[in-house]
Every structure is written in structure tokens, then in C-alpha cells.
């Protein structure tokens, strides 16, 4: 729990508090996209988890790049 609080405080410190709004969107987009591809509920959930992780990792990587580029701004 403390790790999450630390992470949240870190996000707030660098002005990224609003990034938390992306998380429900990522989950919803992953679920609906996977549901439109597959019929089996088990497959939908499994693919949605994978897609959510992929999107999250991609966005996190982009955020790191942007933070690096703006480190002196």
C-alpha cells in the first residue's frame, strides 16, 4: 500500500496526478476491444489483460521518454 502512496505522491510531484484517469480507460478499452474480437469469456478476459498491460507499458515508456526530454525544462 505504501508503495502505491509513494508512487501517487511521485506522480503528483511531477504534475502527473491526472494520469490516473488513464487507468480505467485502459481497462475499459482493453475489455471492449477484446470482447469485439472473441466470443469466449475466458479468452476475452485473458486477451484484455494482455492488451491492458501492453497499452500501459507503452504509455509508461512514452512518459519516461517525455520526462527525459523535459528534464531541463
Amino acid at each position, binding site marked *: 500500500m505504501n508503495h502505491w502512496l509513494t508512487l501517487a505522491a511521485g506522480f503528483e510531484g511531477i504534475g502527473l496526478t491526472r494520469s490516473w484517469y488513464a487507468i480505467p480507460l485502459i481497462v475499459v478499452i482493453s475489455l*471492449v476491444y477484446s470482447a*469485439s474480437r472473441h*466470443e469466449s*469469456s475466458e479468452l476475452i478476459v485473458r486477451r484484455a489483460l494482455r492488451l491492458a498491460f501492453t497499452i500501459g507499458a507503452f504509455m509508461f515508456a512514452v512518459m519516461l521518454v517525455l520526462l527525459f526530454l523535459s528534464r531541463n525544462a
Partner: protein
Amino acid sequence: MSDTAPTPTAAAPKANLKNPILAGVLAFLIPGLGHYYQGRLFKAALYFVCILGTFFTGLRIGHGQVVYFQWEDPENRTYAYLCQVWAGLPALPAIAQTKFRSKLAFDSRFLTGDLNGSFTGELNYKTGSGRLEGSIAIPQAAINGEGNNAAKFTGTLTTDEGTTPLEGTVTRCSIESQVAPNRDRGFEGFFQGELPGKSGDPPTPIAGSLKGSVPRPLWDWYEVPLNDAHGNSELDRAHRELGSRFELGVVYTMIAGLLNVLAIFDAVYGPAYGDEEPRPPDPNQPAPGKAT
């Protein structure tokens, strides 16, 4: 690359789509309803919760001001609505609000009829202030300035000393427009009334400025355009009040609408890959176009 590509032949859906066109229309109107009609209950629940949840969360983030339809003024066209409208019935009232509203409904100087409703607010009088709760009856003439009609308040006044019943009249009334994108319709005026006397004492006159609100009916605030009575956009005000929450609300509601496009296609044509995992082509099978 072709080794990992999904085979199109595995895409045959096993779901019973029943009448796909009807299912598509139902899926458009209420996300998940088309799938419910087809008996695909897991998907119905998933689409319903995810899409409507996202849509109404966006509306909530944007304080109900992020979904509306405006097309006549080229500078303030709501292109976002082209995405939001796919959320179906929850987004469609925006069109009706723009097309069927009289301009008077956006004008705070007029009341289109007598107004009776609950009232909450504050009363600031000479010796203090207190919270008012009760009901108010506002005759049309009290706002439109025809004669000396006054609004009548009946309810309670809560101060540090306790709660007492209170009745009185309100003159010099002003009220916000009938239609605006928030639930509370501001009302203020000059109150004159009497506090009941304690243990047989005569009633005490009380007078002061009254300020509060009456609730708007759902139809008067849900997805109404951000315009004043002169057709001027109130977009700047909304941005000032909401800041980045305005954009967040727009994004949430747009994504909800776009996700329902996927759900509609799913209802009409079935899932893109069907029940099967996408499989690599079988090396024992001849490649398409290479007859043996």
C-alpha cells in the same frame, strides 16, 4: 511474419446473431442490449457496464457540460459529439435539447410559468444568518416584473440557536434561466417574514437577503447546449470553471461512443476472430492459390 498471422478461416463466429440488424439497432440505442437480445449475456453485461460507465463517468467529471450538440455556429461546432453520439440513447437528448428549445428558456429575465418547488439556501438578516430549507412558490409575474407579485417561502430556518419554522414573502426576485447545464437553479430576492414567538411571545419580524436554489428537472439540465439567451457560447466559462476536467470529460465520453461502434459491429457481424485463438497456418495444408 505470415507464420504468426491469424487465419481468416478461424473467424467464423459460433454466436447465434438472430436478427443482426435489429441487434445492431438495439446495441446502438443501449450498449449491450443487442447482445442481450442475442443471448450473449456476458458480452451484454461487459458492454453495458464498460461503455455506459465510461460515458457517465465522463459526464460526471465534466459536471454534465461536456456532451451537447451545437452545429449552427461554425466556430463552436461540437465535433466531439460525432463520437459521443454513438453511445446511443444517453447521448441523443443533446440533439433534442438544441433543436426543440425556445430561446426564452435560456433567458434569466423570464419565467415561462409559475414555479413551485423545493428550496435550499441562506438568509442573511440584520442580526445573523441561517440556512433555509423548504418550498417556494414563485408566480411568473414576480420575475417578469408585472406588478407587485411576490414569491412565497414556507419552511425552516436553521441557525446556531436551532431550527424554527419560517414563512414569508420574497420580493425583488431574480432567477437563473430555466435551462442550464447544472441541477441547481439560482434564485435570490429580499425576504420578509415572521419568526414564531417563544412560549407565547408575539412573532418576531425578520427581513434580509435570501439566496439559494431550486432544483431543475432533469430535462432542463441534461446535455443542454452551452449557450445564453443570445446564442453566445458559454464554452469559455465552462473551461474556466472546470479546467482540465472539461477535456477529460470530453475524452471519456468520446471514447465511450467509439467503443460502442465496436460493440455494434460485434452485434451485427459477430466477433472478428470467433471462439478460437488465432492460429498459425497448418504447414500440412496447401497454401491458398497453390492447388496440388
